[in-house]
């Protein structure tokens, strides 16, 4: 078993994920965006999909299937970028409850 298949790897990934989420929260707050539950949901989905794309490309490189890696990068990578733009815009939507609570 290598490090990248070990429990230690996933433990460290978990910590990195928490740190990234905390940093993201502060960053969004500084931009005046309040992260509601559904926004967190969207971000989580995007992260899961992007993680899948990165891992797919990685597996294909590891298997020496370069065409699969390129196609995955092209097709799924493009979807991830488009999804990022959509999620970004949705994050900046004024949440109804937030808006109400501010007035």
């Amino acid at each position, binding site marked *: *078993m*290598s490090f*990248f*298949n070990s429990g230690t*790897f996933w433990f*460290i*990934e978990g*910590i*990195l*994920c928490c*740190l*990234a*989420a*905390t*940093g*993201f929260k*502060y*960053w969004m707050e*500084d931009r005046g965006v309040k992260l509601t539950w559904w926004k967190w949901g969207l971000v989580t989905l995007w992260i899961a999909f*992007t*993680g899948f794309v*990165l*891992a*797919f*490309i*990685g*597996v*294909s*490189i*590891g*298997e*020496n*299937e370069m*065409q*699969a890696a390129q*196609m*995955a990068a092209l097709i799924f990578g493009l979807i991830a970028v488009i999804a990022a733009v959509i999620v970004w815009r949705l994050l900046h939507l004024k949440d109804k409850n937030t808006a109400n609570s501010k007035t």
Partner: protein
Amino acid sequence: MKKKTFNFHRRQFLKATGAASAVLGGTGIGLFGIRSGKDPMTYSGTESLQGMTQNFNRSKYEVDTPTYKKVGETSRIDARTEVIFARMPRFGQQWDDEKGLDSLDPILKKYYQDHPEDLELDLHLRKEIFPKMRQDKKKYGDEFILAEAWSNAMGAVWPRGYNKPPEETDFPHPKYGRKQPLELESPEMTAKLIKKMGHEFGSTLVGICKLNPEWVYKHPMRGRGFDTEAPLDVPSHWEYAIVVGTPMEWDAFYANPNYGTSHDSYAKSRIVAYRMAAFIKELGYAARAHTPGTDYDLVVPPILIDAGIGEQGRHSVVITPELGSNFRPAIITTNIPMAVDKPIDFGVQDFCKTCKICAEQCPSGAITMGDKENIKGYKRYALNVSKCHNFWYSNLGNIGCRLCVAVCPYSRKSNWLHKTALQVTANDPTGITHSTLTEMQKRFYPAPDVKDYYIPSLGGKNASYRKPPWWLRTRDFIKLKKEQS
């Protein structure tokens, strides 16, 4: 003021840490992917003994009736003519161009009279392919020195087969063996024990079923001679069939043709089966091993289906959830009472209907692109065995071809990516994922033009599906003399 500064720093720090963590985490996921793709632990079970990789939850997919369908009158297979490995050596020895069909023994003659298309293909092999293959072997054969040496070495440990009929070989030794079978606790406990032993003996897969006598050859070869006229009465002690199976080495199999034959897996499954037969005889029961290469008295795929090992694909090979079709099975017929497994249906029949990748990429055109047909009373995909066999000699290295197994989407490595795809297809009743994944397979995993797999004298380029593994590239290790290369 001081507090504010601290707050500012803390926020900045957390934001920077978050950004760094995101980059590190993403990189980690990518590296995890690369590692999964390379990991030898995912080489379709090669690493696994003790049943660790027979890990697909079959109970969810169990069905009461097998995934093959009986649609007409059935008849047992006549191994003397219908099994190409029994037919061809005799054809080779007996055929005389001048006498034609009259040079053959009556059984062979009758077969070829009924199947002129097979005669044409078998003659084509003899007259066209063999000479060209020998000629090209001299020119290009050195590339395959290591592959042949590896393959032959893998087949060097090979338990000797039976040379006597079942009544004489299957029981404990009359003098030294147990006189009475041991009394067993229960069929369930025996099945559990047999499966554990199968894994301990080195098998990745183990399954058990009642033996359907229809799967026994009408004129089995071993210990009876080819020319026996009387069809074999299925021995009454062949009540159960235990199926074992081991995977072929991934890289060599995935490269083909023809970087190594299936000898590695043949030998492993053969050893497991003879160990299992010996174990059962020690308990006082009868057992006979039916093993690769050609030492079978039975037709294998339906028995694998009955035992819940997998389903038969369009390429006629059985596909298992753990190894795809990248494995070679052996069977032990026995009378030790055991609880049996149920057949499984994890979606292969639906998948094969539209996939057809093996048929498109079979160099000999042996696999049908059409629908299932009534073959000897069972509905299944047709395979032209003679065409397939001819291609075995149309490439270099040790004879053979496993391309249909290599290109099948079910034969991917056992890493998270391909196992997830398997679970998705197994649970999708709509078929949407079937067509999506088939399309992805075709676009993501390119293959050479089928003609290129042939030797140059037959119009090809000695192509392989994937590059041979580093340890089979002869020129990197052996200094070839000029006249050799």
